[in-house]
């Protein structure tokens, strides 16, 4: 049912695109067929899979890193007023430092390496996660907190059964907006210092002004993300929401 609705809305989108592409210059809005043809060619050459694969790996690695550190930091800031006062300013500065600057500095200091790339992405995304989870940690239910304290919940129990369920909506928001952010930054990072990946491909085709390739790559990545969302995030989310 949900799948059907998703499929339906995807088809609707496709139809709208197809119709729009009839009426304008195919170079500014290529038709779905043209994009599909590009993708078939690119897949046949093996580039598509390779680029998507390498980008996906970078997104995954930096996403996990950023989620873990960002969540820990955000929760700490949300719960401790002192920590918040001390770290709020650096956090905001980091949050507002452009991806370009962070990336360039990471490449300068750590060399043009994979580690630098992944660290740069994680560092870009981390403050975002922290800011979102801080709001979550600020709003914890004091009644449940007292209950947990009265019953001497140990740390693990508290985290798993009291903290995480309350942070869940914030974590989902951070994850959803975060995956996409990570991948957007990976593009910048790949553009500046990696010889492969979707970011490289996009900047390459952008040089050639191949709009079909741009749309093709970004759609394939969206599709991958939709799949990740459907297979991973949504079931997790549904499980966490069973009680509602």
């Amino acid at each position, binding site marked *: 049912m949900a799948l059907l609705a998703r499929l339906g809305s995807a088809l609707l989108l496709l139809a709208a695109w197809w119709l729009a592409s009839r009426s304008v210059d195919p*170079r500014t809005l290529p038709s779905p067929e043209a994009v599909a043809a590009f993708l078939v060619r690119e897949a046949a050459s093996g580039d598509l899979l390779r680029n998507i694969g390498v980008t996906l790996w970078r997104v995954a690695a930096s996403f996990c890193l950023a989620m873990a550190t960002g969540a820990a930091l955000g929760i700490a800031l949300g719960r401790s007023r002192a920590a918040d006062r001390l770290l709020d300013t650096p956090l905001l500065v980091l949050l507002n430092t452009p991806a370009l600057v962070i990336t360039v500095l990471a490449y*300068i200091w750590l060399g*043009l390496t994979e580690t630098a790339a992944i660290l740069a992405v994680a560092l870009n995304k981390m403050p975002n996660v922290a800011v979102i989870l801080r709001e979550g940690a600020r709003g914890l239910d004091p009644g449940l907190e007292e209950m947990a304290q009265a019953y001497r919940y140990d740390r693990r129990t508290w985290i798993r059964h009291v903290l995480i369920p309350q942070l869940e909506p914030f974590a989902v928001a951070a994850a959803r907006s975060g995956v996409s952010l990570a991948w957007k930054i990976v593009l910048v990072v790949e553009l500046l*210092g990696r010889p492969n990946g979707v970011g490289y491909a996009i*900047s390459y085709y952008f040089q050639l*002004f191949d709009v079909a390739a741009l749309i093709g790559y970004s759609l394939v990545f969206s599709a991958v993300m939709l799949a990740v969302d459907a297979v991973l995030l949504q079931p997790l989310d549904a499980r966490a929401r069973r009680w509602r």
Partner: protein
Amino acid sequence: AGAQQASAPAPLKVGLLPFGTVSWEAAVIKAEGIDAAEGLSLEGVRLAGSDAARIAFQGGQVDTIVSDLLWAARLRAEGRAVKFLPYSSTEGALMVPGGSSLTSVAGLAGKRLGVAGGPLDKNWLLLRARAREKDGLDLERAAQPVFGAPPLLMRKLESGELDAALLYWTFCARLEARGFRRLIGADGIAEAFGVEGPIALLGYVFDEALLQREPHTVAGFARASARAKQALAAGEAAWAPVRPLMAAEDEATYATLKRAFLDGIPRRTAASERSDAERLYAVLARLGGERLVGAAATLPEGLYWDGGPNG
């Protein structure tokens, strides 16, 4: 042209990049009133980078930009009728530190090698082909290529993290001013493929429609461009309005930038440019394949504009 001169001069919008030499030329044209003399009014449109320039051209926000031959060829092959007017033959080079022990391409084996523009950069493809044919060396495997943004690579070369770097000419000029030297230039590489003279891989790109609509304006602009270059070649005086645009931090950088620019002024006929370009294009099509050059295996017909002063 006389009829037009009487009325208001026709405007022509040219895309200018912060470090592009087009803005130098435009500054001279404006400062010396060359555009008015040729019956047009040159309007510079500032853009942040070559990507922005291409978007602006595609979207019709500017009438012409300077871009590379391959891009123009690809556009034309894909059905957008554009014309190419050679602008400069100045090209990038493979740079090494002044004190480097490297003296030949063959010596690159095992070295860390920065490449601006990525694995499909045309100079990198040509360099690889040359190394394979002349030295029997597969650079992609034998050396350690590192791809990245040119400023970053320049910095890495300076800090010693790279042994050599294949960079665009403005970066080369700056490095030269700091005591780095060219191991081999793009022209040197191209020679290996039977190219006869300096070949202008950069040029103004116009829509053919504009040419048909306002042939006099475009021709006037071509003449204005040539006159500005002559003025710059003629002596120091013309450089006054250009100097502040160059972001040259010292005299040495200024001098090398200036020399490199002047060396690149195209002086050959369109026909000879074209035949050399065809030769190079064939090599590139073979090396880079469809991803580099698009569907056309040979340079599309009618790409070069013959109406210019060289034609």
